[in-house]
């Protein structure tokens, strides 16, 4: 059985087929959630954003034009904008505090020997601005190219590279300081 293309799925969603939305979620939701989780630093907030994003996909499916943007870029843009909206309302909650919320389901990998490194990475990511976290997530976790990631964040390519550079440097500096602080 062949998988439907993104275009076919979006046509199905625009025609009101729930099956098509489920198939799209199976294909893209994990990555959409990851961007939201990394940007917002909270599993619960990321779940809400992912749910809201699926509803936006349903109501705006007809407005997606494959010749203008890849579906993944369009989806990430929806998620990023929802994250920005949510960050505005989260202003009263210190970001670091929000991000220290325990993940209710720690994965098996976190118990492995590199768990310390992952903890330090998580701490370093928490120290970044949400936009820097989003840049790192899109480029290094989602393996998007620069122009697409810049489009998602609404930046020029030059501004995106600059943001990414600062974000990665900050992560390295934080991780180094955390390592030396522990030794």
């Amino acid at each position, binding site marked *: 059985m062949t998988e439907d293309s993104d275009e076919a799925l979006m046509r199905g969603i625009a025609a*009101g087929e*729930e099956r098509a*939305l*489920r198939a799209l*979620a*199976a294909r893209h*939701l*994990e990555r959409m*959630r*990851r961007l939201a*989780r990394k940007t917002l630093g909270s599993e619960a907030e990321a*779940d809400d954003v*992912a*749910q*809201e994003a*699926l*509803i936006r996909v*349903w*109501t705006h499916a007809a407005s997606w034009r494959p010749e203008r943007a890849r579906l993944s870029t369009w989806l990430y843009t929806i998620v990023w904008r929802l994250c920005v909206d949510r960050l505005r309302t989260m202003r009263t909650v210190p970001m670091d505090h929000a991000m220290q919320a325990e993940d209710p*389901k720690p*994965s098996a*990998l*976190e118990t492995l020997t*590199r768990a310390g*490194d*992952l903890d330090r*990475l*998580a701490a370093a990511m928490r120290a970044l601005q949400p936009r820097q976290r989003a840049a*790192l997530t899109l480029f*290094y*976790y989602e393996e998007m190219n620069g122009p697409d990631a810049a489009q998602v964040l609404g930046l020029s390519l030059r501004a995106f*590279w600059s943001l*990414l*550079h600062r974000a*990665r*440097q900050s*992560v*390295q500096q934080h*991780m180094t300081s955390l390592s030396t602080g522990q030794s």
Partner: protein
Amino acid sequence: MTLAQFIHCLDTYGADFRRWPDQDRAAGERLRDTSPEARQRWEAAHRLDELFALDRASAADRSRESVITDAALRRIRNLPTRKSLDWRWLFRPPMGAALGATLAAGLIAGFYAGPVLHRSAQEMGPLAVTALLDGEEELL
């Protein structure tokens, strides 16, 4: 490529040379293979890239995704029905048949009633004008 340029690229694009700009890739690989300091920097960047990949792999939770999709679909079912901007429904049965019948009835009525109406209008026309002028005179 200088060491400073190499470090700048590492801090932006990471240790995977495939992600570097085309014009810097070969020079970057050469410097890594010839300069011990560049090699050391590259290895540190590579460790961070590996950590990103490990972090990426550690978070997938498929069961949560189906819960989110189900919740979204429940909300979607309660949304007001989407209004279509498609006008083709006008020309499909039964609306298309009704529209066609109305047009045909209009044409037939026009064909038969037209001359009669035209004639009566010609007859009534001067009378109407006279009545109007009379009315104006009365007002004056």
